[in-house]
């Protein structure tokens, strides 16, 4: 069989998951200067899954292409994706513009066409806006099937169909669909590998296409939703430490919690 699987992996640069975000003074967003950024954890899993598919279906996968839309610094996470096993990548420099999922999906649709990709693996959500939208939107725009919250992905080479076990509310379900297909990753899908130093060095030699939003001038990046303000959630009143189980039960009874 000729190599016929072209995987596209969109990745996003977000504030590192371990950082507690601080609201900016103007109350319009989250403070981003001097904060550690890294690849969205779900996207890391998406990269890993693409690389695993390539490793287990050597004859099948033609290319893994990573793409990121964000500030120029997003090239750092693209290098990480390349170091982990992506072959090529595109950086779409959006400067400081923060795009909504709808605009991202529209731009990605054009990248999909250009790359002639037939399998797209994305994170199920980014940990900053917590939208959980882009994969579903992209699938809708392309009129492709979608397999969100994937916990297991199996590619059948003979029929070129993909079977995906999905996380759902009460447990899991399994669906299968022929290519082309959009998959979004859940945390359980895999354990991403570390990018080793030799691989990071090699990644510097891998191709990175650089575009800007003006290359997608037919896509409006005007936000549809206007953020009026961003504020801290109400803080909980400080609690108390109890010394014994009896005291705990007494307090819970007093609070009518039991």
């Amino acid at each position, binding site marked *: 069989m000729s190599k016929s699987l072209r995987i596209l992996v969109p990745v996003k640069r977000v504030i590192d*998951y*371990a950082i507690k975000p601080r609201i900016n003074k103007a109350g319009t967003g989250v403070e981003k200067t001097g904060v550690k950024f890294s690849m969205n954890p779900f996207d890391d899993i998406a990269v890993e899954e693409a690389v695993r598919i390539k490793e287990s279906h050597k004859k099948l996968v033609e290319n893994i292409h990573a793409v990121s839309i964000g500030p120029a610094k997003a090239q750092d996470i693209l290098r990480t994706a390349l170091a982990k096993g992506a072959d090529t990548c595109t950086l779409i420099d959006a400067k400081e513009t923060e795009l909504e999922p709808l605009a991202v999906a529209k731009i990605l649709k054009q990248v999909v066409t250009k790359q002639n990709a037939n399998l797209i693996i994305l994170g199920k959500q980014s940990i900053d806006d*917590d939208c*959980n939208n882009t994969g579903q*939107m992209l699938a809708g*725009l392309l009129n492709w099937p979608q397999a969100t919250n994937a916990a297991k992905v199996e590619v059948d080479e003979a029929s070129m169909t993909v079977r995906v076990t999905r996380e759902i509310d009460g447990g899991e*379900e399994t669906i299968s669909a022929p290519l082309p297909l959009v998959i979004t990753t859940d945390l*359980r899908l895999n354990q991403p590998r570390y990018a080793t130093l030799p691989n990071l060095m090699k990644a510097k030699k891998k191709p990175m296409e650089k575009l800007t939003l003006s290359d997608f001038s037919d896509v409006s990046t005007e936000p549809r939703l206007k953020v009026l303000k961003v504020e801290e959630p109400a803080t909980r009143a400080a609690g108390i430490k109890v010394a014994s189980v009896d005291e*705990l039960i007494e307090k819970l009874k007093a609070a009518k919690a039991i």
Partner: protein
Amino acid sequence: MFSMLRVPSISGSLKSASRTLITLRLASTLVFLESSRDGKVLQSSLSALSAAQQLGNPVTALFAGSSAATAAEELKSTGGSTLLKKIIVADSKTYDNYLPEALTPLALEILKDPEFSHFVVASSAVGKNLLPRVGALLDYQPICDVTKIVDSSTFIRPIYAGNALATVHCGQNKKLVSIRASSFPAASASATAASVTNAPEVQISDLTVQWESENLVKSARPDLGSASKVVSGGRGLKNKETFDKLVTPLADSLGAAIGATRAAVDSGFCDNSLQIGQTGKVVAPDLYIAVGISGAIQHLAGMKDSKVIVAINNDKEAPIFQVADYGLTGDLNEIVPELTEKLSLNK
């Protein structure tokens, strides 16, 4: 828009009267409701219904799948309100398992009606899967996981794992909203005179997605998402045996649902569907007991709106104590059984 609704004068010009009519006709909410195989309306969907009612406009409910008709009857007898005017039933096997490829054409067809100013779903696994696909095809950006409705076009939603609350204004003609079920009460039980109609016939999607099987966790416990009490275990329980030995009886003594942290799920202490947090379920019970849970940002995102939080941990520096109303430091293996025993005696 609302000022127009209050036009009091019957003698107003014909023009203004017809404009009022148009405005009235334009404001209506479609809410997509999920039901179980036997036609029970899901708790999260009842919350979506009450959120839809908060918008203040007439509400049309949509059920899809083989159990749709049964669910519509149940809703008519229990979940009604004066705002619920109509129930659309899409009784077809095509919609079983709620595949978004099948549901999207149906939702698009119904939403074509300019009357619908809002489309509301619960941000359940099904709702999250469906709404963005519908949004992309209508060319609208949805507002996801809303925890508060300020007015018919302004909503509050948590971002950054609940560490910030964003107030967003949506100027789009149709507002597509998914709501966080734990932030809205389930629609209360009362009968309704809402009419039941059949959904329009829609061309079936040409996408060949096969639904193969499901593997649901069977449990007699209350549903995690809507339970009034939750006992949750974390890494501190060390292994599955301890998890089962300590957490299960404690939950039994309270009639509580069982939850877990990602660490506990990853280590195989319990099923993944019990995970609470930014990427798992979000709960807000009356009582949340965290056993052996350190309190990482991602876990707090899923439970910090609980009314009373109890933390039991051997590490007195654990961040969970900063959000706990009542904290007890010590050996889980001694504390939890003692608590279980004393709670059982109390019953």
